[in-house]
């Protein structure tokens, strides 16, 4: 395999409006001085979408129980920062790219608002709607929700998604309190802060209590598996909510684990049926399966597009949407099908016009590893600051295969294996587990397929499965002569590596090894330590 040197591509179209994005930051500030000027048309569009977000938030606070929840749960304070999250992810975006970002993000915001409404309506402390609570099945934050694809009248509800996962996207400091709580109770500081924070929420008595039952899964790592034990201790023994532990095999590429995985899916479904009184509905399952396939087809096409000189849905637009649509939605919400189609249309339109998202494309990078949640908009920064195009990221390199979508007796049996496959190949775990081939070999395969000339290796320092290939990544990249930039971070905890600490690692490499100057020097050093 030979790595081709990439020739800088200059955008023939001038980027309208602001181009010195760093100037918008207020030193030591929590928020920015003002929003970005994107030229008249795009600014008005962004303004219009901002109004829409304000409407969503307005509707949310009109419900008294949501206000009550705001004063009960610490993590709810992070939702004050919703519009800013959108601003961060849309930095520098114009035209189709801006529209794609809004199509995705605004839908995700609506979906999270619905989830919060659900949580607080059923929560024993807030809405206490007992009947409603009974149609909720709790799932983990990072869990593939395939086992819920056949229950049209049940709600698949994750408490951890709004309390920790989304919170950290909104406010980089969101999880710190919960991490500290877990550590005060004796948890070591060297475990992954994601399950650590989730355990902290449970210990801190800050999780809504609702649901007929819960399905926990050994999602991504040893930490998440064990963190579930902390949560179930309270959930099951104190709150009286029965828990089913759904183990997904780790060596998911092996044929001889699939029967086990499928049987666990059958048992999880049976458990849900028993505790909710709802029956599995095959019609609904295959309807969801059809939508899963649409999402897969779209994602495959976007990724194919990213292999060309004119990538369209990449960076934050690809990563955040994929995470939501693939696992939390998993075919269950028709609005995401509509969004897939809209995104496809925008991407094709931009591709035909050979649009570029930045003034220059200097490097094509594969972003590998587990992205830092407190700095997910780093991908936009890479593009704006250094002209590095993040073609795809590890978490977006997920299932590419179609699942059975027509209702036949054979397909009903196949469906258990499909659900098992989706569950085994959850985001992150499909790479961090399954042997070195899916983590190490596939990275270099993607480098070749995508004509990448650079690897950005997000090293989540306490992700043991990823760290365990550290030296091999380094050796292999050296053998192939491909620049590999290590970007260390601590996923949910910016106190360990700050956002500037993350940026510095790239800045230093680009200046000293690549001997390049930034595209936008105002972004090189940002005083955003106190920022949301």
């Amino acid at each position, binding site marked *: 395999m030979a790595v081709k040197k990439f020739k800088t591509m200059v955008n023939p179209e001038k980027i309208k409006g602001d181009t010195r994005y760093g100037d918008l930051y207020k030193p030591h500030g929590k*928020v920015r001085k003002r929003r970005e*000027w994107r030229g008249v048309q795009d600014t008005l569009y962004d303004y219009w979408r901002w109004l829409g977000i*304000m409407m969503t938030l307005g509707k949310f606070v009109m419900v008294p129980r949501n206000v009550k929840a705001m004063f009960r749960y610490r993590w709810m304070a992070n939702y004050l920062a919703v519009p800013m999250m959108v601003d961060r992810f849309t930095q520098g975006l114009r035209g189709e790219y801006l529209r794609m970002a809004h199509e995705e993000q605004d839908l995700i915001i609506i979906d999270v608002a619905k989830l919060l409404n659900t949580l607080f309506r059923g929560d024993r402390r807030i809405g206490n709607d007992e009947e409603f609570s009974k149609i909720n099945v709790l799932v983990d934050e990072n869990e593939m929700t395939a086992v819920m694809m056949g229950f049209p009248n049940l709600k698949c509800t994750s408490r951890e998604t709004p309390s920790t996962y989304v919170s950290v996207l909104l406010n980089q400091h969101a999880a710190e309190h919960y991490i500290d709580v877990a550590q005060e109770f004796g948890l070591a500081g060297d475990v992954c802060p994601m399950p650590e924070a989730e355990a902290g929420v449970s*210990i801190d008595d800050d999780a809504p209590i609702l649901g007929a039952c819960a399905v926990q899964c050994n999602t991504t790592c040893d930490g998440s598996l064990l963190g579930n034990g902390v949560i179930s201790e309270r959930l099951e023994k104190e709150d009286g909510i029965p828990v089913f532990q759904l183990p997904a095999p780790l060596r998911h590429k092996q044929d001889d684990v699939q029967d086990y995985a499928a049987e666990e899916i059958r048992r999880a479904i049976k458990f849900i049926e028993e505790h909710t009184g709802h029956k599995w509905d095959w019609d609904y399952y295959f309807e969801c399966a059809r939508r899963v396939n649409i999402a897969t087809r779209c994602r495959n096409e976007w990724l194919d597009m990213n292999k060309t000189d004119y990538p369209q849905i990449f960076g934050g637009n690809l990563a955040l949407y994929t995470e939501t649509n693939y696992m939390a939605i998993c075919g269950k919400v028709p609005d995401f099908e509509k969004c897939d189609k809209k995104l496809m249309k925008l991407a094709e339109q931009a591709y035909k016009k050979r649009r570029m998202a930045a003034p220059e494309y200097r490097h094509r990078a594969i972003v590998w590893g587990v992205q830092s949640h407190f700095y997910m908009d780093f991908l936009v920064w890479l593009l704006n600051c250094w002209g590095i195009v993040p073609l795809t990221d590890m978490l977006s390199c997920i299932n590419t295969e179609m699942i059975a979508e027509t209702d036949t007796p054979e397909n009903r049996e196949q469906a258990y294996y499909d659900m098992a496959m989706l569950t085994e190949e959850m985001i992150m775990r499909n790479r961090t587990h399954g042997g070195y081939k899916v983590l190490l070999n596939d990275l270099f395969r993607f480098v070749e397929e995508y004509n990448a000339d650079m690897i950005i290796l997000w090293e989540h320092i306490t992700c043991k499965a990823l760290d365990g290939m550290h030296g091999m990544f380094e050796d292999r990249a050296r053998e192939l002569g491909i620049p590999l930039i290590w970007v260390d971070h601590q996923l949910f905890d910016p106190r360990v590596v700050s956002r500037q600490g993350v940026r510095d690692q790239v800045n230093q490499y680009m200046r000293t090894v690549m001997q390049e100057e930034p595209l936008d020097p105002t972004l090189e050093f940002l005083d955003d330590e106190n920022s949301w």
Partner: protein
Amino acid sequence: MKKKALKALLYLLLTVSGLFVVTFTVYFFNLDMKLTSMIEPFLLKHYDRIPRNQHL
């Protein structure tokens, strides 16, 4: 009648324009976020005061 309708239209236009100017000012100068960032410290203090049943 026509005059009334024109007047109503004018009022409507003025209201919409006024709303636009206000909301756009809030939007562009990030006043929404500046306001919520001032609220956050009070909320955090409030959370610290809530008695919690902290345990495993």
